[in-house]
């Protein structure tokens, strides 16, 4: 994505929209733009033609740091090895409620 910096249409920006207040922002797609204001306007024209959203973010694609997919499995490994993090790990005696 970063290779697009020499593109005559400007660098790539990733676009995130929030459908309504309170819900998480979601990746919508990307746009080309030369600066922040143009990125916001292009993102509005392209990704919010219907269903007025409550929020819009644009982020320079080159600034996003991502896990290398090849390294993802070992990188996320620790997530799986602590079963005691889940409430189902614990035994609740019969008769105990609201726990």
């Amino acid at each position, binding site marked *: *994505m970063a*290779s*697009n910096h*020499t*593109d*005559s*249409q*400007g660098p*790539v920006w990733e676009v995130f929209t929030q459908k309504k207040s309170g819900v998480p922002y979601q990746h919508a*797609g*990307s*746009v*080309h733009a*030369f*600066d922040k204001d*143009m990125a916001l306007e292009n993102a509005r*024209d*392209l990704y919010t*033609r*219907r269903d007025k959203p409550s929020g819009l973010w644009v982020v320079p694609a080159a600034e996003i740091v*991502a896990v*290398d*997919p*090849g390294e993802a499995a070992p990188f996320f490994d620790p997530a799986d090895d602590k079963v005691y993090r889940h409430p189902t790990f614990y035994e609740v005696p019969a008769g105990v409620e609201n726990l």
Partner: protein
Amino acid sequence: MEKLHDFQRFIDAEEKIEPKDWMPDEYRAHNIRQISQHAHSEVIGMQPEGNWITRAPTLRAKKILLAKIQDEGGHGLYLYSAAETLGISRDEMIAQLHAGKAKYSSVFNYPTLNWADIGAIGWLVDGAAVTNQLSLRRTSFGPYSRAMLRICNEESFHQRQGYEIMLKMAKGTPEQKEMAQDALNRWWWPSLMMFGPHDNQSARSTKGMLWKIKRASNDELRQRFIDKTVPQAEFLGLTIPDPKLRWNEATGHYETSDINWEEFNQVIQGNGPCNKERMDHHKQVHAEGAWVREAAAAYAARKQEQLVEV
């Protein structure tokens, strides 16, 4: 080999491939070719419809047509973005289009001669396109699949507005009905050609299906389109221009004459009625817009300098 094996297993499990994942070079090339061709089709497809903006019969029709054409431009941009994640720049794609290396759908090389053509494009051309796109929502490349979801959601009004135009004209004066029939006569076959060559003639289909880039074959999708469109034509009281068209009770499908593949090949090779006009127009508009891109780049660079000086 090990990587290719894992890649296939991942695809077979209906997982999506993301841009930074390992993929065979051929998978990357196949997607770049297909997605950029799809993007170019959306953008070039704005021209035959744009031809009627100033002559739309009512303000309502003009506003609808403008909104639809704006959508098509947007769909082109979604698709260019999806292709760019594979490492090709937008400029390269446009250069390939201008050099004739990248194709776009042959259907847009036909002229829009009367207002009913705008109806026929929405009903038939968008109808054929959406048949293909609904299937492509399940394509294996993540960004392409997500672009298809977005496009299908927006596309649903396009076909209906086209059918509405056809309905008005088919139920209008005898002259209007004649125009509607004329438009159907001219757009029926090019719409069927949109699905591409027969399955046994399509060299690229095998790999495309194996890697789940394509989710249904050309002939399968074409049949789906025919089966749903024939009854819609009957409702309009219009005649599909095919004397051999008949319902096959046993298969549950319509049978048709074969497509004129010579015409298809001629249009693909650049000899359709409007190939030159479409490409000349795209080149001209792109060149005329160059100063805007240059000015925007210069402005952004100057603002950056000022930021550094402060």
